[in-house]
């Protein structure tokens, strides 16, 4: 029937291995914190990265224009019946890698006309979230849909619906599970001030990633393997999608909270004292960014491996859902020594976290309403109300639901 994500997930902890946090650049509500890759840092005398830095993984963008994509998730052709993911997909990523550590073939050489089919004026038809493409020599390539990979995993959480046919569940829930499942997000270009902040942002020579904060709430983390890739994809953040919460923050708080790391001038006698003070200020900024991104870093996540490719693994992750704290889903590529090569995250809005939390609790209770209600410390009628509020009322039989709601109102 359908495919459920994170059935075979393993626990992990997110970290920024191989990356260093640099001082932030703020404009309006948007605070952008550059992430610098340590192996490019020593060699960067300015523009180019060091000659000996590995170039065995590179990522470039493919533009799909302003179009909606219909992505076939199974093995069928996209135009045939089957499970589909439908979304606005303005761009994809082309990942090139070599298994032996040699540099990948020149980017752009084989980015000619794509073989991906396009039907009609507005709709792209695509095969799978991650699709192999012809490589060159030692270089292998695949195309992936950034962030949609993670979002698809999120939507497909507990997608099969009840495992045990409890009598309360409707025929639809039992036959089709959660299908169709949908979530809403807003495009980066709709966040007031983001475009200006990205335009005036000064990209560091060794920068490979960025942490984006809106009104000091972590909106996303974006990391790429190589500084050149980042420079090309910096503007693509405008085409990514963000939770509605962040749009509200950007409108309500047009200026990020004032943050300043002052220098302590007392006791500065020599230049060396001053140099030490400046180093302390830099450390303060690093600590500040770490505090602000605590909702993503060092959080326990469930990781699902999507693909292995030479020394790299492509994975997507969901957090352990908790309505009381911020939750980020995302996807990442990790080298076998643990270095983070690629990361893209999406901050779930409150309602999305609550939905996922509810499903998780139901699934943990084997979809038994009474057990789930106990785990959630509420009554069964209250659980019914919560299901309706979360948009999952269709899972229960209408008569059962009505009785529960009547009981809840009493």
């Amino acid at each position: 029937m359908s495919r459920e994500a994170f059935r075979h997930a393993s626990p992990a902890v997110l970290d920024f291995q191989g990356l260093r946090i640099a001082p932030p650049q703020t404009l309006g509500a948007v605070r952008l914190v550059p992430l610098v890759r340590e192996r490019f840092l020593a060699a960067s005398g300015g523009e180019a990265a060091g000659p000996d830095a590995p170039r065995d993984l590179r990522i470039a963008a493919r533009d799909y224009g302003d179009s909606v994509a219909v992505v076939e998730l199974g093995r069928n052709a996209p135009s045939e019946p089957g499970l589909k993911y439908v979304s606005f997909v303005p761009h994809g990523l082309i990942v090139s890698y070599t298994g032996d550590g040699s540099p990948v073939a020149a980017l752009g050489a084989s980015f000619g006309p794509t073989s991906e089919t396009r039907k009609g004026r507005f709709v792209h038809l695509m095969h799978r979230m991650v699709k192999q493409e012809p490589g060159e020599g030692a270089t292998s390539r695949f195309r992936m849909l950034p962030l949609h990979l993670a979002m698809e995993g999120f939507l497909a959480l507990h997608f099969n619906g009840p495992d045990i046919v409890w009598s309360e569940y409707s025929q639809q829930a039992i036959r089709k599970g959660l299908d169709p499942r949908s979530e809403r997000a807003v495009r980066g270009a709709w966040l007031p001030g983001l475009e200006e902040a990205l335009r005036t942002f000064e990209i560091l020579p060794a920068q490979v990633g960025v942490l984006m904060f809106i009104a000091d709430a972590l909106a996303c983390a974006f990391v790429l393997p190589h500084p050149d890739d980042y420079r090309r994809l910096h503007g693509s953040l405008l085409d990514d999608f963000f939770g509605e919460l962040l749009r509200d923050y950007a409108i309500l708080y047009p200026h990020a909270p004032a943050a300043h790391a002052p220098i302590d001038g007392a006791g500065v006698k020599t230049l060396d004292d001053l140099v030490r003070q400046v180093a302390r200020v830099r450390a303060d900024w690093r600590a500040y960014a770490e505090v602000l991104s605590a909702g993503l870093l060092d959080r326990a996540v469930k990781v699902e491996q999507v693909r292995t490719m030479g020394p790299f693994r492509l994975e997507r992750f969901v957090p352990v859902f908790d309505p009381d704290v911020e939750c980020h889903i995302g996807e990442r590529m990790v080298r076998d020594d643990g270095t983070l090569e690629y990361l893209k995250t999406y901050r779930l809005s409150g309602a999305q976290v609550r939905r996922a939390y509810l499903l998780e609790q139901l699934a943990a209770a084997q979809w038994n309403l009474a057990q789930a209600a106990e785990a959630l410390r509420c009554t069964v009628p209250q659980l019914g109300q919560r299901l309706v509020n979360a948009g999952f009322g269709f899972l229960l039989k209408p008569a059962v639901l009505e009785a529960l709601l009547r009981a809840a109102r009493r």
Partner: protein
Amino acid sequence: MTTAHERVAREDLLTFVSACFAGTGQREFYSDSRGQGISIGFLHEYVLGNYRSLYARVLACGINDYNQAEIIFRLLGSGRRVAPEHRAEEGALLYRAIERLQPQRAMRLLARLAEGRVNNRRTRAIVRRYLDNARDRELWAIKYRRRFRVAAAHAHLPFDGELGSLFVKGWREKAYTTPLFESFRRAHFAESAIYELPYSIAEGLARKHAVPRDVFLRKIEPRMTNLERLRLQDTTRDALGTAVGFDPRRLSPTRLATYVLSLPGAERAARRGELTAALEASAARAVRRTNARFGRVACVLDRSWSSSGSSEKRRRLLAVALATSFFVRAAAAEQRAFWTCPTPDELLVDAVGQTDLVTPLLEAMAWKPDLVIVVSDGFDNDPPGTAGEVLAIARGSGLCPFTLHVNPVFDDVSLGPKPLGPGVPTMGIRDAEDLPTAIAFGAFANGGATLAELDAALGARVAHFLGATEAAA
């Protein structure tokens, strides 16, 4: 003991002078042209309303043409408010300032006066005198004929000689005795005559005769001015195969630096010797003109991404930084440049990376200079806002000599060039060769000088500004 009023007046005046060097109403990297216009317009209205005599004297400070034109326009438009004892000085300043403006800017100003219906006796007298005394009157009458006519009619200037038939009948006169007018008339019928006209006029008429671009450019070349030649480097290279020559010695260091930075890196590297020599020669001339003398100077120069400027002011900050480096080297006993992102070859600099002013500042202090010049747009972000604090602490503990932050970028939110912090004086600057002026004003901003001292300094500048006229007359 200075009163609060005097202190406020001094600060207002310095803010205004500083803004008048940097602000042009054009879009900058961080702010758009609309905000710029509002911000600088407010400053003008404020200073005009509160310190009218000082406002007029600012004309003598060497501020940029845009703000000179603004000041002239506003002073002429509010002549009734001038105090009788300042009337003579203001009139002299106004006339001298108009006379020193570039003709195209002066003509635009005159047309603006007509459009704004500024039509009092003093305005008419100044416009008449200006148009009467014009050295190349015939050339202007052709080159700026619409504005010339509007201004002359507005000032009730009689169209004497053939000006009358030129402006009233247009070029449809039978024949002119003035050679340039006759060429202009014939150029409407004969292609050969367009090459006797100034380039900008000939260009429109060449289109009328459908002259191929390469033929036109080849034949008009002798009539191009030096700046037109500079501007048409790429055009002529595309059309003719070789770019027209220009005289780099007649360009200011900043303009030359803008040109150098517009070239691709490979070409800069290939023409390294030639470009460096041109920049050095230009800087040496500018130093001779300004009589600048420095000791051991460290230049901390911003080459961050924001120095790429806007589409209206492309690489302006970077060009000023590069020109400052050459200018100071020509004027100083010893000079060293510290770029925000170290560059092996100064000529190859590009706008790249974040604004880390702290590291080059600390390196500069370690070099033990007598003077530190910081050229930056004031947006230091690695770490944010630390450069100003470091400078304040270093100045306080005697680790750093007198430091001046010069900033060619107008920030509409700060009502002037964005300062680095309270510890270091910030002055607006237009070109690198304004550096001595900026240092003089920066010393006032730094040392807590009184309004009287500032007024005296302004008085000296006014005397020099007006004295040059009398010597020339």
